[in-house]
């Protein structure tokens, strides 16, 4: 499907576009005038020191928060202020920095749950096991198995999701997001807590996702090597504002970026967790 051209909303190959997003919590401006675009088939990085507001940007794009100002577009459709589930259905999928799997479901069910809303028919047909429902379930099941195979989790289909090793849990989150057949995939620190081999494997997987499905990927990651290798374009965030946009090489040379990182603690793993439950 080609994105129709014309109109100022988006250039032809731009899938996701955030335009001047701002959000304030009480008096605190968490993100200010944030803009970014993710083209189809490309991996865009979003980096910045801890507490810069990267996850908040994800929450703004995916509808967990509604921005005070600014807009979010997918192709030519405006998604600002839509509910999180509406934005997901429109084609924006994500993973979470602090893994959020469905603890009561097994690995396969975690993936099938992702398309459960597409069910045909009503609550009643689900209850009485009507042929249509059964057929739909079969389709869903097949697809989920395929996705699991693609990320390499086939052998774990009937495991309890939360009993998987950490690295595999992150992969399962990616599988779940892929199942939604989104156009854009937002990955929030997918390599966190992985060893170098696992990281290489993950990078391969992300590349394959882009190559095979033509998705646009937006990636938050603290591992600079990982980001620099994978991304074609990088946006750097500090104190809620964009301080630099460019290719990996450009970003690495930028004095503002260097200062932001030297002034902050680069090595600390994970963001400061003082706000209670975080997305």
């Amino acid at each position, binding site marked *: 499907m080609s994105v129709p051209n014309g109109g100022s909303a988006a250039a032809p190959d731009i899938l996701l576009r955030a335009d001047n997003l701002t959000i304030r919590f009480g008096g605190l401006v968490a993100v200010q005038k944030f803009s970014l675009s993710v083209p189809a088939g490309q991996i865009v990085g979003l980096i910045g020191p801890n507490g810069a507001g990267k996850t908040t940007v994800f929450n703004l794009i995916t509808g967990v*928060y509604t921005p005070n100002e600014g807009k979010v577009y997918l192709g030519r459709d405006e998604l600002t202020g839509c509910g999180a589930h509406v934005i997901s259905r429109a084609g924006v999928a994500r993973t979470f920095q602090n893994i959020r799997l469905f603890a009561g479901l097994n690995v396969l069910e975690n993936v099938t749950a992702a398309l459960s809303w597409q069910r045909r028919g009503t609550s009643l047909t689900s209850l009485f096991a009507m042929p249509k429902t059964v057929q739909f379930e079969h389709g869903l099941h097949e697809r989920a198995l395929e996705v699991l195979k693609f990320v390499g989790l086939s052998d774990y289909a009937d495991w309890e999701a939360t009993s998987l090793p950490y690295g595999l849990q992150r992969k399962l989150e990616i599988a779940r997001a892929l199942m939604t057949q989104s156009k854009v995939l937002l990955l929030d620190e997918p390599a966190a807590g992985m060893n170098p081999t696992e990281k290489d494997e993950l990078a391969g997987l992300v590349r394959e996702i882009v190559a095979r499905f033509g998705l646009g990927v937006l990636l938050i990651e603290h591992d600079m090597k990982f980001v620099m290798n994978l991304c074609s374009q990088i946006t750097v965030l500090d104190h809620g504002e964009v301080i630099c946009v460019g290719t990996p090489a450009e970003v690495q040379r930028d004095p503002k970026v260097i200062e932001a990182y030297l002034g902050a603690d680069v090595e600390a793993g994970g963001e400061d*967790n003082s706000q*209670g439950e975080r997305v």
Partner: protein
Amino acid sequence: MFDLIQYIVDGLAVGSVYALIALGYSMVFGVLQLVNFAHGELFMVGAYFVMYAISLGLPWPMALALGMTFVGLFAVIMERLCYKPLRGAGKLAPLITAVGLSLLLQNLVQAILGPNPQSYPAQLPDSSVTNWLTAAVKGSGEVVLPQLPEGLFDWGDLVIRHRDLLIFLVAVGVTVGLELFLRKSRPGRGIRALALQPNAARLVGVPFDFTISLTFFIGAALAVVAGLLQGMADNQVTPFMGISSGLKAFAAAVLGGIGVIPGALVGGLVLGIAERLLVGYDLSTYKDGAAFFILILVLLLRPQGLLGKARMVKV
């Protein structure tokens, strides 16, 4: 017209008791976002405790102080044993546990003391322990039962009983005192900090477990005050007073704005007045439904309550 004013005035006393119980619900919910379903039972246990202590011959202030301490500590232990292990286990587990605790306390009291209402002075079971206790406490002196004042302010059409006025003043006094404690004292500010931003409060050194225990202690102690007042006002204490008044008090807390201290008072008074009006206008069969009707109405129209501010949900 004068009927109406009279009913409102009468309703204030009933509402004051609800308010005192509602304060406990409100504080605990503010700090832990937990509906401590067993809170009403603390009120009931408190009412019994104080009644027995007085009937043993203790002067009422001492009985009240003992009751507040005992039930307060009981609430603290209950929190440590049953709620604390469930922190972080979601909202459902502590809520179900609270329902179980409520059921347990109600049935325990019923099993030990019997399902029938007791009135002052309570008949103590005849055993060597109680005999010894009675002897130790009162010696040879007479038991002096506390009395609520019996007089009236009589303005012809409008009559205010001294006891109603006293109960109302106690409720207002306690609410003001509690609000001052929460604003001015160090542990009180700790409770407020915990309610506003649990993790930030921890970071700046608010002792987490202690503050939660303190919240439970204060809530339970206030419920004991309510238990003494209601026990004396009705001259009757039953194992079921906790569940009925407790649920109404919860409705009062939500009505006023759960987590807001003056809200509990306002909610309790409004509810008491509403109930008294229904009785006054011959609709007493609807009286017990009134609290819940108001509760659902508030949840629909103004979920944050009369005095509450809409809170931003933390994600």
